[in-house]
């Protein structure tokens, strides 16, 4: 029987052929089955369904973080494989894996770490705290928020399904054509990469719009823009970047997939296509993307430093202007990713200079944070230690970035491990350390108990030592002439030793990640003892600390009124001064009902992506129709909210405060 119409180009050959990918696939399937079995055993299906269909930003935030943390373990496993391969594959040895596998692992590591770890943690943290910080009940569009999450999750699933069926793209995390064109990579790997990113990218764009509107429209009365916490400012500029940058990604990948599916010639070598256009476009998105990740981390540090120094953030106005400066500049520097493409001396100089100018507002921010500690009372809790680790690593990363912004220096280190060391320096030292600080900082607000301090501190030390041991040798290797993405090499002296040292570094980082998992387990174990009864475990400054921990599903029983920056700190000061407090007046509120449509849209999006990857056109059609039907169904539903009456709310609030006091 001919099943081509149904299966497209999917055949049994798509199953993993190599031992390592087979192992990965089996492991993934087994852990999936284990989760299903556990759900049956503990009879948690209904509980899970309530989570998956929730429109509460806090729950969606937790789901983002869970996905991102699981993906971080996958990305870390990829990193360990890369390091093991490069530590061994010198001279005649070809190491552990075939070159095709290594290239897939390289591409998967980059793709997963950026799109599903860093982006996931970012959206997770925004969902968890942004509405609370603004004194809002939820994001502007709770349903869109759920759709965003599910599109993100489907992108993640597609990227991982490739492990079981067909393999991933070997074309690097940004998939430069013509290597990623049909002429050189006809298999499904590149398509997995494209559609994982396309679907997750649409989710990111929707999130960007959602959070921007939330900030502009849902702030508590009295909270003018210049009274917002700096984290909210950092999200505001981030969402602007998302809204301007992500459509470029969508269009670029769209053209690449038209090349692949319909034999068009946007980026092919022949037929009038031009790969240089792709490289321009992908970086016109790719450079702002770096700031999409790092600006929220800057926002987190702005909150953490002020809170743990028990002091106002130094130079609030400058910090806001610095954010806008970085946002604007980040759109006019993209060419520095290909100084070696031959654009000409003047063009290179222009983009080099705009790049180094970004260092000015960034440097100013670092000085402002450090001077926030000046004449403060600095407590070295885990989030503050992450801040210290951040300043130490990020400064090195920033400086190596400035070095490479000089075009004539870049000519010598571009695409070498020096570059690899640089971007890990800013992304781990800036983005990931920032998100870890945020997770430790806001954890009690979400779950109602604090994380173990001792283990948290140990994990900081392991990460920073591991980071130095893993990445400083890569700077040296880059200067020794080692290029990126090598699956084996001939050692002219010293290469292998440094690769082994770097491998040890990644093991230390893995130890740090292990300590974090242990920290979580121990904290859950001791959750009764670690309960945060005050709602304000760090002597916080912003509104999220004014509600009990864990934050109730309605966020604020009474909408707060804001008169100053650091609104909650000012409230506490007013109480200390024995100013008269207003009596609470409860009013009925509207809250979004759970909705399964986001999840269903995700399912149909999976059909579209999977169908396009394997050329199962009926599945694509089914997915498209399904998404349209979902939109119509949702739009025709007028009862998407329910009312919580004033008396009920009062009852909840009092009960809540009693329980958690």
């Amino acid at each position, binding site marked *: 029987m001919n099943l081509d119409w149904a299966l497209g180009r999917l055949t049994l050959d798509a199953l993993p052929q190599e031992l390592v990918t087979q192992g990965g696939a089996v492991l993934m399937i087994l852990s999936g089955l284990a989760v299903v079995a556990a759900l049956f055993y503990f009879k948690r299906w209904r509980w899970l369904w309530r989570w998956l269909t929730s429109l509460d930003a806090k729950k969606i935030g937790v789901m983002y973080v869970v996905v991102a943390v699981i993906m971080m373990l996958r990305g870390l496993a990829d990193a360990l494989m890369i390091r093991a391969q490069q530590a061994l594959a010198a001279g005649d040895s070809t190491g552990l894996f075939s070159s095709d596998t290594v290239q897939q692992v390289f591409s998967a590591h980059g793709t997963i770490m950026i799109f599903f770890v860093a982006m996931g943690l970012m959206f997770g943290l925004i969902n968890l705290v942004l509405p609370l910080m603004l004194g809002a009940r939820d994001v502007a569009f709770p349903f869109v928020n759920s759709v965003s999450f599910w599109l993100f999750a489907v992108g993640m699933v597609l990227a991982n399904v490739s492990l079981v069926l067909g393999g991933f793209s070997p074309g690097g995390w940004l998939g430069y054509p013509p290597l990623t064109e049909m002429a050189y990579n006809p298999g499904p790997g590149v398509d997995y990469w494209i559609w994982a990113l396309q679907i997750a990218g649409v989710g990111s764009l929707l999130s960007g719009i959602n959070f921007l509107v939330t900030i502009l429209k849902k702030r508590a009365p009295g909270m003018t823009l210049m009274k917002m916490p700096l984290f909210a400012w950092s999200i505001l500029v981030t969402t602007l970047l998302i809204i301007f940058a992500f459509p470029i990604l969508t269009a670029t990948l769209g053209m690449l997939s038209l090349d692949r599916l319909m034999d068009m010639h946007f980026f092919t070598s022949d037929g009038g296509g031009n790969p240089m256009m792709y490289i321009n476009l992908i970086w016109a998105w790719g450079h702002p993307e770096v700031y999409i990740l790092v600006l929220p981390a800057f926002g987190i540090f702005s909150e953490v430093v002020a809170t743990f120094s028990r002091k106002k953030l130094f130079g609030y106005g400058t910090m806001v202007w610095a954010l806008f400066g970085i946002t604007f500049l980040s759109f006019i520097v993209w060419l520095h990713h290909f100084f*070696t493409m031959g654009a000409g001396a003047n063009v290179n100089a222009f983009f080099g200079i705009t790049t180094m100018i970004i260092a000015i507002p960034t440097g100013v921010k670092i000085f402002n944070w450090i001077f926030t500690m000046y004449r403060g009372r600095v407590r070295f809790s885990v989030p503050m230690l992450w801040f210290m680790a951040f300043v130490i690593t990020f400064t090195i990363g920033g400086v190596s970035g400035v070095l490479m912004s000089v075009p004539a220096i870049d000519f010598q280190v571009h695409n070498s491990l020096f570059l690899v060391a640089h971007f890990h320096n800013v992304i781990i030292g800036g983005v990931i350390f920032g998100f870890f600080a945020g997770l430790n900082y806001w954890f009690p607000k979400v779950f109602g108990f604090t994380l173990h301090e001792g283990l948290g501190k140990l994990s900081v030390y392991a990460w920073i030592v591991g980071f130095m041991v893993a990445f400083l040798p890569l700077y040296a290797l880059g200067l020794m002439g080692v290029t990126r993405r090598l699956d084996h090499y001939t050692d002219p002296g010293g290469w292998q030793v440094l690769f082994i040292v770097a491998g040890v570094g990644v093991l230390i980082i893995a130890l740090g990640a292990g300590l974090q998992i242990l920290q979580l387990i121990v904290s859950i174990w001791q959750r009764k003892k670690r309960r945060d009864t005050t709602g304000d475990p760090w002597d916080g400054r912003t509104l999220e600390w004014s509600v009990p921990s864990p934050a109730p599903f309605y966020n604020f029983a009474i909408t707060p009124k804001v008169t100053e920056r650091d609104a909650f700190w000012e409230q506490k000061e007013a109480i200390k001064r024995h100013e008269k407090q207003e009596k609470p007046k409860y009013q009925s509120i509207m809250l979004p009902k759970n909705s399964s449509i986001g999840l269903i849209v995700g399912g149909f999006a999976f059909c579209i992506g999977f169908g396009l990857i394997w050329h199962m056109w009926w599945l694509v059609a089914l997915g498209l129709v399904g998404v349209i039907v979902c939109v119509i169904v949702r739009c025709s539903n007028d009862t998407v909210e329910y009312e919580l009456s004033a008396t009920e709310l009062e009852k909840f609030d009092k009960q809540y405060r009693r329980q958690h006091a």
Partner: protein
Amino acid sequence: MKTALKIILPLILIGMLAAGGFVFFQSVDVAVLNPQGEIADKQRTLLLFASALSLIIIIPVYMLLVFFAWRYRDSNKKAAYRPNWANNKWLEITWWGIPCILIAILAVVAYRTSHELDQFRPLDSDVKPVEVQVVALQWKWLFIYPEQQVASVNLMPVPEKTPINLSLTSDAPMNAFWVPSLGSQMYAMSGMSSKLHILANHTGDFNGSSANISGEGFADMAFTVRSQTREDFDAWVDATRGHAEGLDMTLYEELAKPGTVDQPVFYTLADAQLYDKIVMKYMMPPASDEKSEDEQDHESHDAHMGHEMEGM
């Protein structure tokens, strides 16, 4: 005593690591910092200058961070505490101003050097340059010497102290040509020809890297630049020309098939227009049935177009 140990022990550890690192890096070739050519030499100076400049920021940041962290730690009740102090015009002017000055200096340097070290700019020299046409293939490098009428795979012999004018293209996914000891990298892309100018100060073998992923055998695309005396170079040309196999389009198509090459291969150049033809392959409409007819009719036309393109 205990606190003193806490500070001294890490310092000793760092000192030992630094000493070990110093000894280690003396024994290996850090190509970018150990230049063998004019361009790489200038780039090293530039790198060291920019690094020194950046220390003006790194050192105060680290010192302030450590000092404030220690001085204003929670347990130190002697230190001043001013929870509402959050603005100071002069401090802010200082840390906007100093980075602005540093970046202004670096910007001038960046502008000048991107002209001076522009890959497209021919080197100033009295010696007549040697032209080499470089083709990135899956997965080997082809070096064509149009004047000497020879070609070579994965080994690029050049005379020392002589400007080498490289034209680069690719007949495979894009790649990048990089000889760290001699300086500067350049992308090689199909359907177009870019330029790079290098010069080796003395004789020696220098490792070349292929710096952009181009498929499965990419890691095997390492090549060697062999800088020789003029006599040795001429001797190599003479030994190769007329004796080695003639490289024409047919043999080239065979060579261009995906695969790696272990040992360098030398050819006599049998088709003077080979490089132009390789570039022009991608400038024509997609291969069709009339390909053979096309090739015959437009041979002279192709070559002409190719030259024009190079000037672009």
